[in-house]
């Protein structure tokens, strides 16, 4: 048993060395294959990462559904208080915050950098408003409260603040599905690239395989160096994809920093975590391995005596 394991380890070590030598022997061909695999993998990975980040933001925005009620501009403080009471008594309402029109104007002046423009106005164009947070997260219940509030006296307009974020979230979900689909297609492409590379290698090593088989080599012995070759090439492609995604994120975040500052936000695209990177390397190596396995198995099946 121990001797069997030693033989297995020796043969795997030999196959690994053989594969590494062959990769190093034709550096240009290896580099081109690695670039093809790396770029192919970086597209779905980068897209998936970006969309996941945006979806996180959209989810955060849509997770606290709010309804904004804007009163008529001539509504008095008694009428505002009456609406506030109604809201507080309402079973669907979790909390109510009153935003006086003077406060709203003040916020607008400071937040959006419109002080000069707004200062030139003769009167405040903004109405009093209530920001209502509702209990639960049911779109139907929200819609019902929205309809109900519109019918109340002195309520000029009611707006579901989270609706756009929900729509964005739905669009991003579709985007993520498309990225996954793209990933599956490009993974199949990676398998095909490796399959073809190994097929060409088999052609150049046909004599060696034939002789080895005739004198007692198992299929595993024949397959092993090709599997290591495919796996190592896939792994190198995965590293290349990681580098492409990391580089692209660095550039994007540099540009995003300026844009985020304009909106007083610290938003930036997150990089691949260590775990994500390991998954990427593992999947890339496994796909290379699979392409090689399919290619060698097909050849061995063809040469098997029947």
């Amino acid at each position, binding site marked *: 048993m121990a001797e069997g394991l030693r*033989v297995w380890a020796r*043969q795997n070590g030999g196959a690994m060395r053989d594969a590494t030598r062959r990769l190093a022997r034709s550096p240009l061909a290896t580099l081109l294959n690695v670039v093809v695999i790396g770029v192919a993998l970086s597209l779905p990975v980068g897209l998936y990462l970006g969309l996941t980040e945006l979806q996180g933001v959209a989810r955060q925005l849509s997770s606290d559904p709010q309804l904004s009620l804007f009163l008529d501009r001539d509504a008095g403080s008694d009428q505002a208080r009456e609406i506030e009471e109604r809201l507080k008594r309402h079973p669907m309402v979790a909390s109510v915050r009153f935003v006086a029109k003077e406060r709203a104007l003040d916020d607008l002046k400071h937040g959006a950098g419109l002080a000069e423009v707004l200062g030139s106005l003769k009167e405040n164009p903004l109405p009093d408003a209530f920001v209502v947070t509702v209990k639960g997260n049911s779109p139907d219940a929200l819609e019902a409260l929205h309809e109900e509030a519109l019918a109340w006296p002195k309520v000029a307009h009611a707006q579901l603040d989270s609706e756009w974020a929900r729509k964005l979230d739905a669009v991003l979900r579709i985007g993520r599905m498309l990225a996954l689909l793209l990933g599956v297609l490009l993974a199949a492409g990676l398998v095909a690239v490796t399959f073809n590379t190994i097929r060409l290698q088999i052609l150049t090593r046909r004599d060696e395989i034939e*002789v080895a088989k005739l*004198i007692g*080599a198992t299929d595993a012995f024949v397959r092993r160096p090709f599997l290591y070759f495919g796996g190592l090439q896939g792994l190198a492609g995965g590293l290349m994809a990681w580098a492409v995604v990391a580089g692209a994120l660095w550039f994007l975040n540099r540009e995003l920093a300026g844009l985020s500052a304009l909106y007083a936000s610290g938003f930036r695209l997150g990089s691949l975590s260590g775990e994500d990177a390991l998954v990427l390397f593992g999947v890339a190596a496994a796909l290379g391995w699979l392409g090689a396995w399919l290619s060698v198995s097909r050849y061995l099946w063809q040469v098997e005596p029947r």
Partner: protein
Amino acid sequence: MITLTHVTKRFPGGHEALRDVSFSVKSGELVTVVGRSGAGKTTLLKLMSAIELPSTGNVVVSGQNTKALRPAAVPYLRRKFGMVFQDYKLLFDRNALDNVLLPLHIVGLDGRDAVRRGRAALDKVGLLSREKAMPVTLSGGEQQRLCIARAVVNRPAVLLADEPTGNLDEAYAREIVELFRSFHQVGTTVVISTHDRAVQERLAGRTLTLVDGALTDSAHG
């Protein structure tokens, strides 16, 4: 050790290479299969080493019927044989020693032990001084001897040689025959196919004669 019972081999297209062949080879025996080109000698050796499977009949090697073997077990059966091919089947992209090391790598032997055994095999066939030579730089006789070194490096129970002197002149042929006789003398079972009656006479041992795929004669030399 090897028993063929009513073996017929028909190839796709209908060509019948062997017809109803039956015989046995005992352990330690020296057997020469003689016959003209196309008589079925190569096919017979391929059937014995499970490179081909019989269309009808059975080939049993050390109690294992080649037709009943799982595909995964076939390589282990082939390792019982040292194969000397008519066309040598040397690997021309590696040197003499590396050619001899291939069977050792297949069974998982590596490093110094493998090199020591590889050199011993080369020494046995008189090629130790040419261990670094590429096969293309070797003469026909040297290539044949290299092929024999590769066949014996794993100390197989049976040595199968297909026309080992077919491409050689008289002097080289005599050397090769002596090599096989020396392997037989240390207890190795040897089966050699040849179209050359002179080779058969020098080898002595048992002779099987094939004519158009049928065994016509079995005699002791």
